[in-house]
């Protein structure tokens, strides 16, 4: 142990903390070596910005004078249905939710131009949306219908909650069939027309802390431009996925459940997306600070795109039919980011779904918050399940 989180926070408050991004630290370690870098650097910041379908927000609406029980009734925000299985005034809006009348894929591929994510982005941008709600009425909550323009100021609480985010590594999607595919990994042209990937690689939070040594339940993070927390392992968290050198997973593996105050966020870091032929989703900006507690942590944050391998999966058969088998290939993020990979003797152009430029901006922003003393680190309250848990 070189330093504790308490010591780091003291330095942050005094404006003396030494902070680098996960991209900058690569050069520092190359130049100075792990041991010296670990002595000199207190915090390394990570970042990621990409679509994460498993997202949504819950709202507590201020009651009208004649009160209304939304639980068991219906609630629509700009025609998008919200979940009303809670109490009188709490509703949950999923990013993927679609208006009842949306054409979906009736004319394939549908364009999915509007859904829950767009409502969340509108609210975060300060716009009002139309609430249409019905209730069955009770003695204590007599109102049976409500139509009103509402914004975040009309809500007691507005909370972004992601059951799953920050996938630690992910598939590279390709299509070996002879027809175009419309997937959550984008449009995949036939006969290996393109290869789409979705990770910030060397800037991605969990790829910089592959064994979850510092990131855990209770970790304070940058979320959507505001402050959030890791609250649980994300759904599908699978720490037992195969790992390569330095414990870095070579398959999709760990995930995080995240929460944060929507009122503190902004649409620069929270963006609705429309995946042609697939559905609506939302891109969420996340940045996680990694305290350099010892040389082992420093070793992990010095990971580069050359070190991280991703599996190439066929989305015409292997993925949709759970066909299993080995990936078509394993490629590094350095190869993916070069613009093309070689597959079956063919040069296949690559496209990203995770914005590296925005991931970079997030890591820089978090670095500046820490530098200015406005963001302090937290000690995790509990560990995420480690490599001994989950399904291989």
């Amino acid at each position, binding site marked *: 142990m070189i330093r504790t989180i308490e010591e780091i926070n003291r330095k942050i408050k005094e404006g003396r903390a030494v902070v680098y991004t996960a991209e900058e630290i690569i050069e520092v370690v190359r130049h100075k070596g792990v041991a010296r870098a670990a002595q000199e650097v207190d915090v390394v910041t990570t970042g990621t910005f990409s679509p994460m379908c498993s997202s949504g927000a819950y709202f507590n609406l201020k009651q009208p004078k004649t009160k209304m029980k939304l639980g068991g009734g219906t609630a629509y925000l700009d025609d998008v249905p919200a979940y009303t299985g809670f109490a009188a005034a709490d509703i949950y809006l999923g990013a993927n939710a679609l208006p009842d009348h949306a054409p979906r894929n009736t004319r394939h591929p549908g364009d999915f*131009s509007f859904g829950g994510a767009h409502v969340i982005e509108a609210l975060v941008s300060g716009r009002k949306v139309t609430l249409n709600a019905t209730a069955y009425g009770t003695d204590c909550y007599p109102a049976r219908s409500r139509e009103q323009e509402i914004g975040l100021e009309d809500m007691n609480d507005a909370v972004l909650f992601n059951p799953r985010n920050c996938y630690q590594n992910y598939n590279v999607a390709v299509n070996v069939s002879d027809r175009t595919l419309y997937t959550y990994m984008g449009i995949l042209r036939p006969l290996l027309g393109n290869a*789409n990937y979705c990770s910030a690689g060397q800037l991605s939070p969990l790829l910089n802390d592959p064994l979850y040594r510092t990131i855990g339940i209770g970790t304070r993070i940058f979320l959507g431009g505001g402050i959030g927390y890791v609250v649980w392992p994300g759904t599908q968290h699978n720490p037992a996925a195969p790992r390569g050198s330095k414990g870095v997973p070579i398959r999709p593996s760990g995930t995080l459940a995240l929460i944060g105050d929507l009122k503190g966020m902004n649409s620069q870091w929270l*963006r609705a997306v429309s995946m042609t032929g697939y559905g609506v989703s939302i891109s969420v900006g996340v940045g996680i600070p990694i305290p350099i507690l010892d040389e082992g942590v420093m070793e992990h944050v010095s990971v580069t795109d050359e070190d991280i391998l991703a599996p190439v999966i066929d989305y015409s058969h292997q993925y949709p039919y759970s066909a299993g088998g080995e990936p078509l290939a394993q490629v590094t993020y350095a190869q993916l980011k070069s613009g093309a990979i070689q597959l079956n003797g063919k040069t296949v152009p690559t*496209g990203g779904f995770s914005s590296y430029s*925005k991931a970079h901006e997030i890591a820089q922003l978090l670095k500046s918050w820490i530098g200015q003393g406005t963001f302090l680190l937290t000690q995790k309250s509990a560990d995420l399940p480690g490599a001994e848990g989950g399904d291989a």
Partner: protein
Amino acid sequence: MITRKIILRFPPELVEEPVTYRLVKDYGLMVNILRASIHPGKKGRLAMAVSGEPADLEKAMEYVTRLGLDPEPMAEDICRHEDRCTSCTACIPACPTHALDVNRTTWQVSLDKEKCILCGSCVPVCPYKAMEVTYNGS
């Protein structure tokens, strides 16, 4: 030498007229077909860039007007809404002419309109709906 981008609209009876051949052979123009939608017996539409001496271009336009092809300056345009674009690079493999490109140091995506052939491939590919083909500025 000057270049103009034009759209020709073919009524069904003229679809088999070898217009491109005439433009090259009789008027000495360089013709680059950008988009074509031509089917025997149906209305056709041809977007092309024509380059040549101004006088030849003028005569060529008289020829296509005489034929009834209703030549119009190409007013289609591609618009990249920078406020929507996150430079994710999903569009990069979809662009056949590399008009959309990414600087692999800054990771900023850019659009070179000179290279764009208005094929529209980037439009459904962009998850943020940042790409739009506009017609006459709309």
